[in-house]
């Protein structure tokens, strides 16, 4: 029997999470009403990429619980390839709580020992990664568990050995930054392994000092990174390659919720990469896509299609 393996342009590796968002703006400990959304940075990424018209696949593990099944449905409906999602009968799908009040976001996670925490090297299908054009993962993917961290490095190795572009977003969360292992992994990945790096201005400063982002990007480019995209929230973004730097100013949209905007930004950058777009176009496109995501509550609700992004860009 000939097994036909799914082939996708982009493979992502990480953990999906059911997110419970406080609805009344109180701190988490006082909040009593929560809206459940589907989250997890890499899950948001693969769904966004599909919405922007590219094929994406997800290497992950979920529980055979209500959330795991819902995610499978969600990804199938979105056109994300789930051939490499393992449904773990014994495991559970992680969840997190989030409240935003006073302009800040509070997160608390329940993901220890989740199905995704059992991700390991053996989950990395060499052929699946080799046949893709881009591998995307994040600092959170590495932080899930020690075995997941190994899986990330294994996947990166396969990608690098087979000319698959490695796209990496450190996605630093305060909770895991205390770990020296993680800090080292993040730095190593950015400085030595990644081809495309997407990060926020705050992350850039945290990692490389309080220096202008253009300088940080230049340093990374010198070290071998092909594209650096610096996310600056309402101030727009900066995209730097060997050919130069492009700055896109912030886009005016009604901001309901910024969570997940960064993941859409990353997806948009990767989409532009696949399409061979210039840094200029990439900066404006990714910027607009991320801004539009902020219109709705939760990371998936307002993820734009390509047409919607282009419409916004034309209107500008």
């Amino acid at each position: 029997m000939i097994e036909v393996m799914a082939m996708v342009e982009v493979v992502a590796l990480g953990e999906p999470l059911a997110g419970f968002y406080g609805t009344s703006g109180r701190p988490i400990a006082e909040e009593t009403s929560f809206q459940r959304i589907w989250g997890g940075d890499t899950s948001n990424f693969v769904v966004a990429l599909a919405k922007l018209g590219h094929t994406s696949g997800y290497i992950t593990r979920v529980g055979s619980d209500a959330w795991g099944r819902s995610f499978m449905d969600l990804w199938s409906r979105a056109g994300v390839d789930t051939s490499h999602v393992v449904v773990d009968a014994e495991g559970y799908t992680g969840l997190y709580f989030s409240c935003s009040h006073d302009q800040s976001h509070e997160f608390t996670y329940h993901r220890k020992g989740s199905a995704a925490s059992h991700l390991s090297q053996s989950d990395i299908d060499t052929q699946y990664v080799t046949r893709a054009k881009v591998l995307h993962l994040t600092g959170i993917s590495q932080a899930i568990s020690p075995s997941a961290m190994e899986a990330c490095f294994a996947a990166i190795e396969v990608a690098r050995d087979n000319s698959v572009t490695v796209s990496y977003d450190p996605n630093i969360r305060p909770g895991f930054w205390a770990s020296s292992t993680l800090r080292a992994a993040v730095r190593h990945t950015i400085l030595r392994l990644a081809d495309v790096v997407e990060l926020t201005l705050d992350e850039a400063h945290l990692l490389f000092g309080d220096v202008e982002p253009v300088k940080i990007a230049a340093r990374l480019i010198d070290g071998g990174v092909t594209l650096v995209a610096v996310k600056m929230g309402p101030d727009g973004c900066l995209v730097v390659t060997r050919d130069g730097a492009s700055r896109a100013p912030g886009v005016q949209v009604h901001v309901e919720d910024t969570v997940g905007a960064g993941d859409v930004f990353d997806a948009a950058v990767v989409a532009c990469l696949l399409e061979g777009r210039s840094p200029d176009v990439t900066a404006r496109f990714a910027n607009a896509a991320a801004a539009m995501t902020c219109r709705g509550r939760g990371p998936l609700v307002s993820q734009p299609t390509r047409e919607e992004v282009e419409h916004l860009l034309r209107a500008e």
Partner: protein
Amino acid sequence: MLDVVSLGEVMVQLNAAEPGPLRAVRMFERHVAGSEADTLAGLARLGFNASFISRVGDDEMGMAVLMELNSYGVDTSRVTVDREAPTGVYLVQRGYPVPGKSKVYYYRSGSAASRMGPDDIEPEWISSARLAHVTGITPALSQSCREAALRLAEIAHNNGALFSFDTNIRIQLLKTPEAARRAVDPFLAFADIVFTGTGDLDFLFGNDELEHQVEILRKLCPAARVLVVKCGSHGASAYPKDGVPSSDPGFSVPVVDELGAGDAFDAAFLACILKGSPIDEALMYANAAGAIAVTARGDLEPLPTWNDLHVFVARHRGGRESLMR
């Protein structure tokens, strides 16, 4: 001066805002619940000094849980904040697939409470308590929790306090009847008051006539002054050591969420026993408390005061329609 002490896990409960399968539910209400904690809160509502021994995570949910229990008057000074493990969380799916029944999905494995052990108990602190209460959930959480619960039972026994035990079988934690028996038998041996339910009896002793099951149970509870069997909407029966069994038919109410009813029942029954009420009255008020508890979401919120119980009973059994307002 402590009246009642208990040991167990209290968790954050995310209760579906509407009935239906969880995957289709968007909105959830956060409540705080845990069998022993519920019963303590019920007793606190009825005027008793109740203290809870437990652990919660060093997280926002842990804080939420403590704040909530405090607001019900439960002493949480002996709840330790554990830096290494999270506070347990669980989800409630209501009315699906069986209308009127709730299903729970636990996120509690490896929780702070599961790491409790005998050293979490301070014998001096609980020495004045007149009653110690534990349910079959706690020994099922982990070996260390089992040991902690046993220690509590021992200390209570040595102090001459009453030890009350509710079998409270959770099949998600105790997968087989053998495991359930191993979990509950040591506690049944110590218990002065035993609570159980028809579902628990079937699981422990196989489907059989209630009277036969009660006989088997009696033999396992040599110290028990009374066995109480809860039959859900059909009320409850009490089997005193000396004396005739008695029953109360319960109350018919619309069911919003049946979780917590058993714990509310236990609280009211124990409250009556501590006040020296006759068993018939204890059964009636216990049934009333259980009935009130199913009419609202959340385990703690509907816990009644004495006045609530009196009004409820008068309304349902008073004969004439009295004015409510």
